[in-house]
């Protein structure tokens, strides 16, 4: 990204600047408003909510979260989401970094074909894959088990992950690798001691984007994790809305729990989000 003077010098058209600011303020307010709506209302009682849907909570309360804990399985779902996200992202990061090491730094027949196949798999709609996978998982008795979704998520994310790491690993100079081989590094040591440490930014980007994807995912978790104790947060929230739709602050407290980890992660590592989510379009 460029610095503050990215556009170069420009005639100081006051009207132009004013219109730009108005446009950007309007779009920003629109972007922030629903988030504001969740944050203020998740900490209100139902009465305060009905008095004003917009005002900040006059008497902030954690009652909604307590009630969610008592009546719903919100915290169990939250824990399940964390577990599924951490496991899937770990698996796909390890496996795809190994594969990308080979595709970027080794020569073998089918290498280019493999990369082309991966790129075209990135756009496959998941809804096409879930039916055969569901029937398969039913047959082997893996419905309502975490390993089923962890395998599926890892697999769905593998093409993008290998693609992203392949282009990054490719930019690591071969001289560094050659030198370490002369120093007696084995292939595995090159991967472990050279490639991975030099790729921390790319790995961080990948972990952030993949975590985001798994955390937000609904369709697969809805289909493969149907038990109340095993649901992920996103699937659980859809249930929650059905059951408590008249208790708006309670449901909004649930939405708050679903968004918060992402917002925190975003505020901490925004550049990884931008880099990862625009990868593929811009090199």
């Amino acid at each position, binding site marked *: *990204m*460029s610095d*503050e003077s*990215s*556009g*170069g010098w420009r005639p100081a058209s006051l009207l*132009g600047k004013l219109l730009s600011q108005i*446009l*950007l303020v309007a*779009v*920003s307010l629109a*972007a*922030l408003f*629903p*988030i504001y*709506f969740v944050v203020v*209302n998740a900490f209100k009682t139902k009465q305060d909510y009905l008095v004003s*849907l*917009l005002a900040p909570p006059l008497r902030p309360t954690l009652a909604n979260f307590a009630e969610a804990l008592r009546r719903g399985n919100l915290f169990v779902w939250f824990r399940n989401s964390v577990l599924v996200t951490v496991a899937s992202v770990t698996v796909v990061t390890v*496996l795809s970094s190994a*594969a990308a*090491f080979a*595709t970027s730094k080794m*020569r*073998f027949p089918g*290498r*280019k074909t*493999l990369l082309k196949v*991966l*790129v075209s798999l990135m756009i496959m*709609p998941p809804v*096409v*894959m*879930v*039916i*055969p*996978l*569901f*029937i398969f998982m039913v047959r082997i008795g893996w419905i309502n088990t975490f390993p089923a979704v962890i*395998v599926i998520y890892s*697999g769905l994310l593998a093409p993008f992950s*290998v*693609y992203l790491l392949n*282009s990054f690993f490719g930019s690591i100079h071969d001289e560094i*690798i050659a030198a370490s081989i002369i120093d007696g590094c084995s*292939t595995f040591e*090159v991967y472990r001691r050279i490639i991975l440490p030099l790729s921390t930014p790319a790995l961080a980007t990948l972990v952030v984007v993949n975590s985001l994807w798994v955390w*937000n995912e*609904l*369709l697969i978790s809805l289909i493969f994790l149907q038990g109340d104790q095993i649901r992920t947060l996103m699937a659980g*929230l859809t249930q929650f809305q059905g059951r408590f739709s008249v208790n708006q602050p309670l*449901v909004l407290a649930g*939405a708050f729990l679903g968004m918060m980890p*992402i*917002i925190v992660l*975003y505020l901490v590592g925004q550049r990884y*989000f*931008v880099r990862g*989510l625009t990868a593929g*379009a811009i090199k």
Partner: protein
Amino acid sequence: MNALHLVSRRKWAPFLWVLPVILLILFVYAYPLVSILRYSVHALQGAKQVFVGLANYRFVSKDFIFWTALRNNAILLINVPILTVIALLVAIPLYEGVKGWRFYRSVIFMPFVLPSVAIGLVFIYILQQNGLVNTVLRAAGLGMVALDWLGNPNLALPTLMAVIIWRELGFGVVLFLAAMTALPEELGEAARLDGANWFQEHLYVTIPQLKPVIRFFVVNEIISMISWVFGYVYVITGGGPGFATQVLELYIWKNAFAYRAFGVASAVAVILLTITLLIMVVGLGALFRSEEEEYV
């Protein structure tokens, strides 16, 4: 490119490194893509599959719900030009470095990273009959435009489209901005020296240079509108009222997992897949050809 192949004498070593990913992909992509074709010409009776030829496709072709879903997905495509134009309009002042552009960029991109489920819940309470929008409208004496945004069959789809625009806009803005900052500045400067005004400069100089990224965004959003809107629809309207917001993904999901009509669902999945692949081939074909050397 191949420092290692000089050292590693074992020819199969590279395959060992890619094997786990290949196995995963065979299981999660290849196996389902082959199976779905098979399922689409079978009916599942108990544990048995019975060959039924094109019966599933014939059933689908006579099901008005399928056509409604297809039509709604087509209507969602209206979002694509809207998103592209607004995203460009917003990205240009950011590119020009107006005061606070970094802050604006962070804020505008945020909706795109939030879970569509949580977003959906929030918009339900903002847009329902007695939701925030209508409460504010009534308080302002505009009770007659306090419409049932999600409950009225004529309004539900446009409302859903607005929510989708709200969430996906930031993606376009950040994508375009990133591409703009990589542009050489000389062309814009030359245009200004030649007397181009702001509007002419961007329309004739900036935007044409963004063609590849705009093309990527358009294709990406077309595919999104056709095969990645399940989250929004499932949470916000569930396809209703009636079938007003039914889409292909939901049709597949309902047939497979609510009615256990796996054959019918598979036939529609094959149709959806075909549409997606066609869009990719037509839309990205040129892009792929020009860029694959770089990528691979």
